[in-house]
């Protein structure tokens, strides 16, 4: 048993040597999945966020000090995120950036809310750059949470609108989605917009998430309904295998997707992907070349997938910092949050701002089509995302949910 004690004593001794508290530099904690299966997404978010902060620091930082950024690895689970949140709070973080998962988003936003209730003098801001669950802007909304990614209805409306204008939506729409909150949000959005874009939902399917290896029974069902287009919020394998199964059955159906631009999708799907649509919050084809080249120079690749969203979100935050001035004194996080509400940021496609009612960002949505002959082909193929139309944020967004009751600081 004495070994127990020496181990415990050694651990205790390690813990006592805590860092001393210094004067106020702005501290940002990136709590992301940096190990485990979601690393690829988590790494992209951390890279993009750090890129923006590095630029701010190159221009003199904030409050007379460089902004301090620290990465915390949540290992892809909510308990890990809860641990790292407490560590970040103990380190004196003012801002938390996260985005690779809605489950972890739910944990972080709730931790932030409770921390702010219990420590009203040291509040923390949560910048969500990737968690798309509606509930985070609904029942779980609060003043210190800012959501810079879109949600199911937010992307579905512009997708439908542009596909309809292009004549690719047709009258018969098939809805196939994953059976959990995200997929159900998608299905609801597809059904709700039937009258607006004048189509009929011929069938709607919800299937298990990432468990189906063979989509051919689903394709047979799709074939029997003879739809003009299939709208799906599927991601990863569920999107890939579905598209391949449709391709193998030689069906000429246009897909409207949300996650086609995940790295690897186009390469894996091959020519099957051509002509399909994707609604995303940015498209590199439309961005200023100097900016994307600078990004590539710093990080080794062009901004892809979730990176533009992160650049937008953290970009608006950095813009808001320019509006507040604490003269080297103590940082008032509430003042930064209020400044974020009143900031408009040009993300290269148009202006974006944060809606006061639920702190959902109003961002322009680009609808693109997979096509050859683009400036930036992806995944080492000939294909890339040809922008069809950019829909302004105000035209794409849905009204704030009633379930969001935000209490503002006095």
């Amino acid at each position, binding site marked *: *048993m*004495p*070994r*127990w*004690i020496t*181990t*415990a*004593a050694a*651990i*205790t001794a*390690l*813990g*006592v040597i*805590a860092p001393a508290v210094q004067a106020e530099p702005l501290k940002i904690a990136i709590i992301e999945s940096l*190990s*485990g299966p979601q*690393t690829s997404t988590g*790494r992209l978010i951390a*890279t993009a966020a750090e890129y923006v902060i590095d630029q701010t620091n190159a221009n003199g930082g904030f409050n007379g000090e460089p902004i301090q950024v620290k990465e*915390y*690895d949540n*290992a892809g*689970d*909510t*308990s*890990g995120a*809860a*641990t790292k949140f*407490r*560590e970040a*709070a*103990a*380190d004196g973080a003012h801002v938390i950036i996260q985005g690779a998962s*809605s*489950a972890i*988003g*739910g*944990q972080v936003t*709730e*931790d932030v809310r*409770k921390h702010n*209730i*219990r420590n009203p003098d040291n509040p923390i801001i949560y910048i969500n750059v990737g*968690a798309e*669950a509606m*509930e*985070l802007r609904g029942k*779980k909304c609060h003043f210190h949470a800012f959501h810079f990614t879109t949600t199911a209805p937010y992307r579905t409306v512009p997708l439908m609108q542009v596909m309809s204008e292009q004549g690719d939506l047709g009258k018969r729409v098939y809805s196939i989605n994953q*059976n*959990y*909150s*995200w997929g159900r949000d998608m299905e609801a959005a597809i059904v709700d917009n039937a009258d607006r874009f004048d189509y009929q939902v011929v069938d709607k399917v919800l299937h*298990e*998430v990432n*468990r189906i290896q063979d989509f051919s029974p689903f394709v047979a069902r799709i074939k029997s309904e003879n739809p003009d287009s299939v709208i799906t919020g599927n991601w990863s394998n569920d999107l890939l295998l579905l598209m391949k199964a449709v391709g193998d059955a030689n069906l000429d159906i246009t897909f409207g997707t949300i996650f086609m631009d995940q790295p690897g999708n186009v390469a894996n799907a091959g020519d099957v992907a051509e002509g399909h649509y994707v609604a995303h919050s940015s498209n590199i084809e439309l961005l200023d070349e100097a900016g994307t080249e600078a990004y590539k*120079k*710093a*990080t*080794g*690749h062009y901004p892809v997938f979730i990176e533009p969203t992160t650049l937008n979100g953290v970009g608006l935050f950095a813009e808001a910092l320019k509006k507040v001035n604490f003269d080297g004194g103590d940082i008032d996080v509430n003042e930064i949050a209020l400044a974020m509400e009143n900031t408009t940021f040009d993300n290269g496609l148009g202006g974006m701002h944060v809606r006061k009612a639920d702190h959902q960002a109003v961002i322009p949505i680009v609808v693109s089509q997979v096509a050859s002959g683009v400036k930036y082909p992806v995944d080492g193929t000939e294909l890339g995302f040809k922008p069809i139309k950019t829909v302004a944020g105000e035209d794409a967004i849905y009204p704030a949910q009633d379930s969001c009751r935000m209490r503002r600081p006095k």
Partner: protein
Amino acid sequence: MRYALIAILALLALLIIAPPLLGTGWQYALINALIAALFAAAFNLLVGQGGMLSFGHAAYFGVGAFTVIHLMQSVEYGDIPFPTVLLPLAGAAVSLLCGALAGFFATMRSGVYFALVTLALAELLHSLAPHWDEMFGGEAGLSSMRMPSLGFTFGSTLEVYYLTLSWVVICIGLLYAYTRTPFGRLTLALRDNEQRIRFMGFNAHGTKIVVFAISAMFSGVAGSLMAISNETANYSVFSTQVSALVVLHTFVGGSTIFFGPIVGACVLSLFTFVVSGVTHSWMLYQGIIFVLVMLFAPKGIGGVIQAHIEQRHALPWKRLAAPYALATLAGLMVACATVFVVQSLEIVLSREYAAAVARTGEYAPYTVFAREWQVFHPFTWLFPVLLLVPGLYLLRRAFARIQTLWDKDDDDDNGDIAAAPRELMEGGH
């Protein structure tokens, strides 16, 4: 026995006195370690004592967590008055019921079939949960807030730590007391020879259900404590990862000894907390530790400690000191070499490094062990070899010497117990 009691009391005193001196990050890590320890102890009742390897214990952990989060919500909205300190009782009750029900089916079979049934039952919950938003809260999960109770606000992590500590100490105490009861002895007999229990006139199936249910109940307490500390519950708690982690904790700690899994859970939880803050390769290190323990100390960390305690009067400690010191040194050399290679590869193969190379056109030196290393300098790659080769050689020599000393002791006096250390070193039965 007296020494063991003193050691446990001293450890307890440390667990009570130390946390206020630590930061909230460490306090929270200790809460997680305590919860993992209780979960592993409850799991080991089934595996180590009952001889039933379950691969789906996350189910009962999760049921406890969701029960408590629902109850906490009712308390928060003022529907039911229920003291925060007693919340784990509710989790325990529901997990006990679920455990009895699941146990009824699972324990009809034993061995691999039993493991598969438990796995299937847990997967059932894991695939059901995301479809049932009202009960499990969908992707974003359920959330609540701890309400004040007994004069404590439970707003600070420290108060939650003491609440967790009290519950974990009481439950582990109860689990230990259980092993001393006649029914606890019956549980051990169940593991050793189920047939014999039947011949003695006991109802083997009934006994197994009770053991399963009690194990599920204490797992439910652990889940409840997690819900109280996180103030959230998410259906990911039902994932196979959670079930696998408790198996890992139990076997690294040693399932044949009561305190083994508790040691394993504490060591690995704190290891994760410390190492995941330093390197992204912490899962690799955790895996290496697991493989090494399984290969060279199949009875786990607890088994190694126990072998030494049992032999403390028989071992020639003075003559063992030198080879033990040598083994430690050689072990450190091998560990340093491994860490150096893994960290070097992590840095050199990272995207950031590749981007820097593309930007500047040169392979910049990188820092490991507070020293700068050139990627293409021969010494950089000679350095781990210089540590590894002599390290492995010395390790073999040291262990050969230790083996002789343990064996000699074997010949001299008691031959029975010393079979353990040979097994310990050679790694197998």
